Each structure stands twice: as C-alpha cells, then as structure tokens.
C-alpha cells in the first residue's frame, strides 16, 4: 500500500456506492426500509455471483462473453430436469454441464490460440443455440415443482438463500484470489503472460480453470434466476454478460489485467441494483433509466481515471 491515493483507488467503488445510496435515500426514503434492502440484495445476487467469476477472467487478462448463454442453458437444464431429478440433482447436473462448457471455452482459448474475446463470442452463439435446441425453443415451466422456490424464498441459517449464497461465493472467491496459488497464477498471467510462462506457471491449465470458474458461478446465478422465473427458456439472459462485465470493471478490476478487486465487484453489483431500484422508486420510465444509468457509469469511470492520473502524476 502506498499512501491514500492507492487506497482511494481500491475503495473508490465503495465511495460511489455510498454516495449513490445517500442520494437515493434523500430522494426516496423507501430505499432504506428493511424489506427493500433484502429485496436489493436478492436482486443483486444473480449479477454479483457471475461477476465473482468474471473477476478472475478479467484479472487473467481475458473475457468470458458466453456467460449469458450459459445462464440461459442453465435455466433450460433446470426446467427440463428438476421434474426428474429434483432440485438439487438438477443443479448438480447443471454445474457439471457448466463446468464442461467452461472447459471447452478454455480449451478453445489455449489449444487453438484464439483470443478470449473472439473465442467466447463464438461459444456465446453456440451455447445459446444448444439451449434453444434442448428446449425446442419453448418454455420449460416448473410451476408444478415448487421445491426450486427454495433458491429464492428459502433461508440458510436464517439468511435468505440468495444472500447467503452470494456471501458464500464471495468469501470463497476472495480466499481463492488472495490465498491460493491459483489466485497468484491468475494475477501473474494477467500481468504478463509470457513472464508467467517463463516462470513455470501452468498457464494453459490456469486459463482453463478460469473459464470453468466463470461458467460454474454463472450456473449458480442461473439457478437463482430459474427459481424466480420458474421457467427454463433459451432466450433469457441476453446482455447478461455485459451487465456482469460492467459490475466487474466498475468494481475496480483492471481491464489491462493483473489486478482484480473481489469485494469491489460485489459492491459494484450492489451499486447497479441500487441505481435500478432507486430509479424505479423515483418512477422513472425505462428509457430514462437507461440514460441515467449510462451517465452514472461515465461519471464513475471518469472519476476513477482522474484519480489514477493524479496518482501517476505524483509518482
């Protein structure tokens, strides 16, 4: 750590989230009621959990654009299989499927030497195709299998399940990022892939691992989503990857690789939800919400880059 500037850079998103929350609290007192807070956290969970995985991909210097399609495929797998295998069995299968798809992404990137952006852009199309084929383009509804409801309405040790799962995922993500060789390897590869190779880091295996992580965290997100929708559908989650990448970058994970910020990602995912929720409570219509969201991002990212500039200037 080197002085307040670097500290501020790491915690910048916290500041933005606090200010945004304060502004909305002044404008709409309803935002800080207990029920709404639980509502906020629950809504943030889907994006947040996938973003925990994306934090690894971007820290490693890559992207995973296929997660929107993996999300859709997850809802389809659950929609089809819950009636046969029960909720937990179906989730286990979905995790397995997600792991395989992630490994396929990783193999395409490492074996065929295709950049992550292009590789996952291609599998994004393929995986959505698979989801649509699997459900024949129709809804796989679960109105008769209400045990999946547990994933939104249930509680774990008294904590609403989505919130508990989010915490669990982020604690694990942070521990992996900070305390395991895998975490060091991911940061090393993102900061200089050639050097990582020369240093004897198993670069290909780590990259495959990263894509398995993004895919499996997305399956968890998809499980929460299915539980809310009670439907599997190959068309859900369009643009999901962009929302997740936005949360990750806004959270302070460097696009140039090497430096991630796991808790920043969580706070940024919350920030996105607060903005959406606050604008809703203000009664802003959807088109205006989009304008407001975009402007808030630009302001936040501009402040962030200004801070970095100041820090570099002082060096």
């Amino acid at each position, binding site marked *: 750590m*080197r002085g307040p500037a670097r500290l501020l850079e790491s915690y910048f998103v916290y500041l933005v989230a606090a200010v945004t929350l304060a502004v909305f609290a002044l404008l709409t007192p309803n935002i800080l009621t207990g029920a709404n807070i639980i509502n906020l956290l629950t809504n943030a969970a889907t994006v947040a959990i996938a973003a925990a995985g994306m934090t690894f991909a971007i820290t490693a210097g890559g992207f995973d654009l296929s997660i929107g399609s993996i999300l859709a495929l997850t809802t389809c797998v659950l929609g089809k299989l819950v009636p046969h295998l029960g909720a937990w069995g179906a989730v286990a299968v979905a995790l397995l499927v997600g792991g395989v798809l992630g490994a396929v992404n990783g193999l395409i990137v490492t074996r065929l030497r295709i950049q992550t952006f292009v590789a996952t852009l291609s599998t994004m199309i393929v995986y959505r195709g698979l989801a649509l084929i699997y459900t024949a383009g129709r809804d796989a509804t679960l109105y008769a299998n209400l045990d999946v409801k547990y994933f939104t309405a249930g509680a774990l040790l008294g904590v609403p399940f989505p919130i508990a799962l989010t915490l669990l995922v982020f604690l694990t993500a942070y521990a992996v990022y900070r*305390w*395991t060789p895998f975490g060091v390897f991911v*940061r*090393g590869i993102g900061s200089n892939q050639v050097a990582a*190779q020369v*240093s*004897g880091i198993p670069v290909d295996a780590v990259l495959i691992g990263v894509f398995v992580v993004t895919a499996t965290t997305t399956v968890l997100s998809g499980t929460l989503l299915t539980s809310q929708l009670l439907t599997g559908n190959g068309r859900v989650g369009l643009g999901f990857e962009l929302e997740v990448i936005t949360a990750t970058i806004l959270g302070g994970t460097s696009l140039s690789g090497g430096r991630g910020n796991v808790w920043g990602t969580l706070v940024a995912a919350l920030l996105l939800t607060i903005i959406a929720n606050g604008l809703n409570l203000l009664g802003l219509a959807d088109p205006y919400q989009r304008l407001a969201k975009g402007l808030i991002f630009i302001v936040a990212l501009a402040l962030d880059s200004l801070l970095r500039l100041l820090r570099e200037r002082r060096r």
Partner: protein
Amino acid sequence: MTQAIELRHITKTFPGVAALSDVSFDVPRGEVHAVVGENGAGKSTLMKILGGIYRPDRGEVLIDGQLAHIRSIHDSVAHGISVVYQEFNLMPELTVAENLYAADLPTLPWLPVLRRRPLHARAGALLAGLGLDLDPRALVKDLSVSRRQMLEIAKALRLDASILIMDEPTASLADAEVEKLYEIIRGLRARGKTVLYISHRMKEIFDVTDRVTVLRDGRRVGTELTSALTPDSVVRMMVGREVKRFSSEGPAASTEEALAVSGLTRRGEFEDVSFRVRKGEIVGIAGLMGSGREEILKSLYGLLPLDSGKVRIEGREVRIERPEDAIQLGIGFVTEDRKDAGIFPLMSVRENVSLNVIQRIARLAGLYVDERRERGILAEYTRFLNLRYASEAQPVMYLSGGNQQKVLLARALAARCKILLLLEPTRGIDVGAKGEVYQLMAELSRQGITLLMVSSDLPELLAVCERILVVWQGRITGDLVAGQADEAAIMLRATGTQAPLHGDR
C-alpha cells in the same frame, strides 16, 4: 576437463534469414564465457535455443557430455540451465517473492492455500545471500528498472542451476549494481557454475569473462581467451572490418542561442533547472537513474507538464504543452524506450519514418497519403543515415536494434527539427551502429541542428558532446566542458559529492 556445454553444428533459419549457421563451440565447467556480436549476429537465437524457446533446425547440444533434447523451457530447466532474458520476464502485479517462486509456491499440506511466511523467508534468504536489498513483499511494479533487473537475476539463480545464461544483464544497471553482479558471477564461478555472458560492453567482457566467442552474421568467427584479446581486436572480429574511432572535430562555433530554459520545475522530479544551448551545440545530460535527467527532456517535448519555468527558442518565449507543440516548434525527440514507446512494430519502415509528417505530405485536403512522397522521404534518410532494410514495406520489428534506432532518428529529422532531444541514443545497439550514430550526430551539428542527449554511458558523453550538464536529485550540479572533464568529474557531481565549482561554467 568436463565440458558443461558443447554445441555441435547448430543451425537455425527464420523465414528469409539464417539466424545461426553451423555454430559449434564448447564451454568447460566453471568458465565465464562471453558471447559477443553485433545485433543480428545470432546471440539471442543461440540463447533461446539453450533456453528451450527455439529448437535448432540442425545440430545438437550436449550438456555435461550427454546429448540434450531441449524442446521446452521445462526441458532447459531440467538440464540445469537458467536464463536471465533481456526483456523483463516479471509479473508487475505480483510481489518479489511471488515472482521468484511462482512455479513453486509453498502451500498447506492438505489444502492449496499459500503459506506466505515460508515464502517470504525463503525469498528473503535468497536475496540476502546474493547481497540484494529487496523486500520480498514489495510489488514488482513499484520497483525501479535496475531493481527489476537484479530481481530477474535472482530469479535465474534461485533454481541453483549449473549453467546460467545472461543476456545483457547490465543494460539497465547502475555502476554499483554492476559491481555487485560481478561479485555474484565470480561467486558462481568459484562454486563451479558455468556462465554464458552476452554483452555489448567491452569493459564488462574484460572485467569478468574467461573466454570470448564472437559471432558474426550467424557464424562463429572465433573463440579466444579473454586475456589474449584487446577491446579493439574483439570489435574487429565482431564487425569484420576496422572501425574508425569517433572523434568530435569541433563543429562550427556559433554564438546564436538555440534554446534557453530558466527555472524549469516539475515537483518531485526536477527543480529550478536553467541552461542555455547554442545553435549546433551537442550537449549531454548526465546523472544517475532517478536524477530527473530524462524527465527534463521529456518535459521539453511536452510529454510531462511543467509546474513552472520558461522556455525560449531562438530568443522567443514558447509554451510546450503537448508533443504537437514541440514538433511545430521544430523540436524532435528520440525515446530510450524504443520497443514500447518508439517504433510501431507491425507498420512498415516507410510508414514509421513518415509518421510525424503524414499530415504535411498528404494530398486532397489531408485525405490521401501519397506514397510517392513517403518514399521520397524514406529514400532521403536511407541514404543520409545508411539505413538498412529488406524493403520499404518490411515491418520495422524485423530490423536490428541499430536500424530501428535510425528509423526513430529519421522520423524526428523528417519533421525538419532544429533541436533534437535524444534519450540513450545508443542503448542496446552494437558497436558498429554506435559509431555511425555518433558520426550522424556530428553531421547534424554541422548542419546547425542543436542536440541534447541523455546517456548513462559516460565515455560516450565525453566523446560526443561539447558540454555536459550534470543532474543530481533534480538539480543541475555541473556544467562541464567535455574536453576538460573526465568520468570522475561527472560522477562527483552526479552523486552530489561535489557542488558546482569554479571549474564549471
């Protein structure tokens, strides 16, 4: 005596270029062996073959008398070879200790969880054993270039390899650190390790190596005991011809003021810098790394904003806030960071040269780049700079270091600059090309172009410049007439040991 390394008829060809042809020589165990040659002579290719990055097309490598098939970095390490590469192979976002032991991080026995204490202890012990004052917990991105270089060396030593290959290890080291490196190398030799030492610097070759192998155009020219050679004979072997020693022939004395700065300040980097330069003068700026010497020139080119101070060009006060301003005012700049901030590696030689003037030579209201005009410019500087390339469309990345440097010079000159700022103009280029660059600088000075150059190479400054400004901790501590100064006089001022005296102007 056992041979640690035996190379037999090594041949490696890249598309269109024979990088190595039929190279054979032996290195006995416990020898420090220099490999020298001009850029493009094949030294780096040879090292990369031993390091497992390239595979030879023909020929074999024997390690300790055994045939070695080195197909990957892993194989190379398994044969006890460790390489310090010239390009930095460090991961800036990781700590010193994590960089050192990336492939071998200590974890708990039952969980893949890092154990930082033993990691730091091990790294600390290694660094202390080498006499390096580096914090294992420091992030590499916070280290200075020379400390990164020392870390790179420590990384190669951590494996306790029996063969160590160093590719220009001193390129960015200060003198005290070079001494430390010598100590390390002598210690390795005493322990029976073998060192292959690649360098352009004659002084180091004669300070630390036992034998020298000279490569030229991918072929081995000879292998001799260092003690049987002189710097001149090594250079002759390298270039295959006599090299004229550079001597400055007192360029036309001018009294016209080309550039004057007063009170230049950029807080934390340099303060109250004032000097005047006459038209056609070659002025050197000396100082240790971190003294602010590069920053002064960068701010004159508009790359770093000034906090205060005045700049006058030919008597007229000017403001330089961006490189565009500097180019408009006739200031040219050649970076020291050729690879990352100089060349456009994939663009052609032609485009690299004409880039600064592309708007000036474009036709149809700046919409159409006339290649014929570009070619004209390139032809002019190809002749003037003796630039060598296969075709004008050749990507500049395939040129040798010396020719890339000339491309940068051509780019600055094509904008018809009157003042040329140069950072380390001969870093990483070979002896022959160095001489050419010096001749060019003298020629430019005769044409009335004013040159300011920063260089870490003191003999170079003394030979090329008429005057030398010395910077210490962001302040000018000396203004010496090169003809009357020596290295000691510069170093005393560069280390703040001696304040400006009457001998200074």
